[in-house]
């Protein structure tokens, strides 16, 4: 079973080298983010470990920040924080969005209208404006960031799942399940869910990359994680102050964020292509 799965995975990536690049890059960043504090990179919070705003050197590969903290472990910590917050938010989005989207697409009528209208309202609401509101109500921090990211990514998730559910629910096997006496819950969880999972997974990758951008934007504005914790966004904000005298403070987290989002999108595209039945058939 595992051998079969790995063989299929191998075939999947051999056909799609960009997808492989995305997967490898994402894996490296994830390992850095998760196991960063186990690596001998130095203490991210040790003030005065080096000169203030020091340029990259052997001792401090990414330089030092305005308090003389080594920048490399701070960037690594930022990767971890940004990934963690985005991942939590996206998991919440995926669970809620999938359930609501399936309910809207399958139950029709009032349920559908209610869910679709709520999604529309959320969709029309700018994420950053909502971020300011959430920060004012629950106070800036990780929880506010997760709430804002989830509310920003849920509407699109609901729409995608709803539209896929609508087309799957039309198929006869759903009617066949209903005839055999399946309850609404069983139809949704046993028959609809596996059939919409592909679309949901693709949407999940896009939601993850959007989440990282939103998280970074919130932290950049000071509405996300609070010091001394670092996320890629809060590092960018700090760096932007010293842009002319210490550009490495912006470059390092900026490039890492760009690489992370690119890797997720490449992987998402690869999954979409692999799940697309029309792939490899040219339309002449």
């Amino acid at each position, binding site marked *: 079973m595992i051998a079969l799965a790995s063989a299929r995975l191998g075939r999947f990536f051999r056909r799609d080298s960009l997808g492989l690049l995305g997967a490898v890059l994402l894996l490296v960043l994830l390992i850095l983010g998760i196991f960063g504090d186990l690596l001998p990179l130095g203490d991210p919070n040790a003030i005065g470990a080096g000169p203030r705003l020091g340029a990259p050197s052997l001792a401090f590969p990414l330089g030092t920040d305005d308090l003389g903290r080594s920048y490399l472990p701070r960037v690594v910590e930022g990767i971890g924080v940004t990934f963690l917050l985005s991942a939590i938010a996206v998991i919440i989005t995926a669970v809620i969005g999938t359930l609501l989207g399936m309910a809207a697409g399958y139950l029709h009528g009032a349920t559908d209208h209610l869910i679709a209208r709520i999604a529309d309202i959320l969709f029309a609401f700018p994420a950053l404006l909502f971020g300011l509101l959430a920060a004012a109500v629950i106070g800036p921090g990780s929880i506010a960031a997760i709430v804002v990211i989830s509310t920003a990514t849920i509407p699109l998730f609901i729409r995608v799942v709803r539209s896929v559910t609508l087309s799957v629910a039309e198929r006869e*096997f759903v*009617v066949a399940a209903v*005839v*055999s*006496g399946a309850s609404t819950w069983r139809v949704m969880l046993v028959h609809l869910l596996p059939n919409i999972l592909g679309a949901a997974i693709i949407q999940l990758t896009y939601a993850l990359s959007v989440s990282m951008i939103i998280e970074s934007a919130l932290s950049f504005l000071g509405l996300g994680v609070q010091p001394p914790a670092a996320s890629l966004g809060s590092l960018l904000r700090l760096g932007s102050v010293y842009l002319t005298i210490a550009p490495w403070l912006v470059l390092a987290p900026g490039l890492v964020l760009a690489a992370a989002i690119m890797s997720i999108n490449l992987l998402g595209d690869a999954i979409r292509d692999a799940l697309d039945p029309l792939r490899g058939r040219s339309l002449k």
Partner: protein
Amino acid sequence: MTAAVDIRDFVVAYETGGGAVFALDGIDLAIGAGETLGIVGESGSGKSTLGMAIGRLLAPNARIDAGDILVAGCSVTTSDDETVRRLRRERLGFVFQNPMSALDPTMRIGRQVALAMEGTPDTAAVERLLVRAGLDEPGRVARSFPHELSGGMAQRVVIALAIARNPQILIADEPTASLDASIRDRILDLLFAMRAETGASLVILSHDLRMIVHRCERVIVMYGGRIVEMGESQAVFGSPAHPYTRALIRAAAGNEAPGEQLDPIPGVPPVLRAPSADCAFAPRCAHAAERCRRERPAERAVGGSRVACHFAEEIMAASGTAREVAE
């Protein structure tokens, strides 16, 4: 003969963007226990709507304007969801037109069959059911996904799903339309064998009047959401009284001489915006008179059948016996 299904003055309309479209326009029908009933008619005549309505499986935009359907004495239109769910599970079995879309593509056959059966059956019980449906390698089939089966095998699985709980009513909506011609007869043989084995009533919806007459005890001819002719299949086919039935027999392939042309029915089926006040077939009927466009024909006994046509007797008398029509 107690009725397994009792349909009374049933009217169904679909809400569409362009207004309501009537699919069933007053259906009165009793289906006896253990009976084999064929329903024929062109696409759009309302036969699929009728079949789905028996299990309260109409699309969300369908609207029941009048009438009721009783399955085993229990109203399908007014009962609560749980009652209807039990009714479907215990009494109804459906066989669909396209077996490939009637099976869940993400689930192995064995699991799908097990879900349709009562309780939590073991592998042996699932395989016994597959064998009953005429599948030779039940173990392999149970482990397969739907796309790994041929159309005929998939339709056997669909029939197995339909008979999993020994239903009292089997409804087959064009069960062979998507199958290879060479296996159609065998699937029909299986369907009728299963009916005989379970003692269920079997309702077959089809375009194929010849097949229906050959296999079913009773036949219903539908047009424009109404029953235009109904009776013992030999009587209906042997001496058709309604002009639409006659046209349907003439339009079907099978009894023409080599080189002879088939005789299609001119025009297209009607789109009913309201319950029809006249005869829905009149615009396409060679015998239509002024009365047909003014007065809705009532169903009445003509010969051995029940016919909804003002001029059934005259038409039958004028064209002689039915053999001539068929030949």
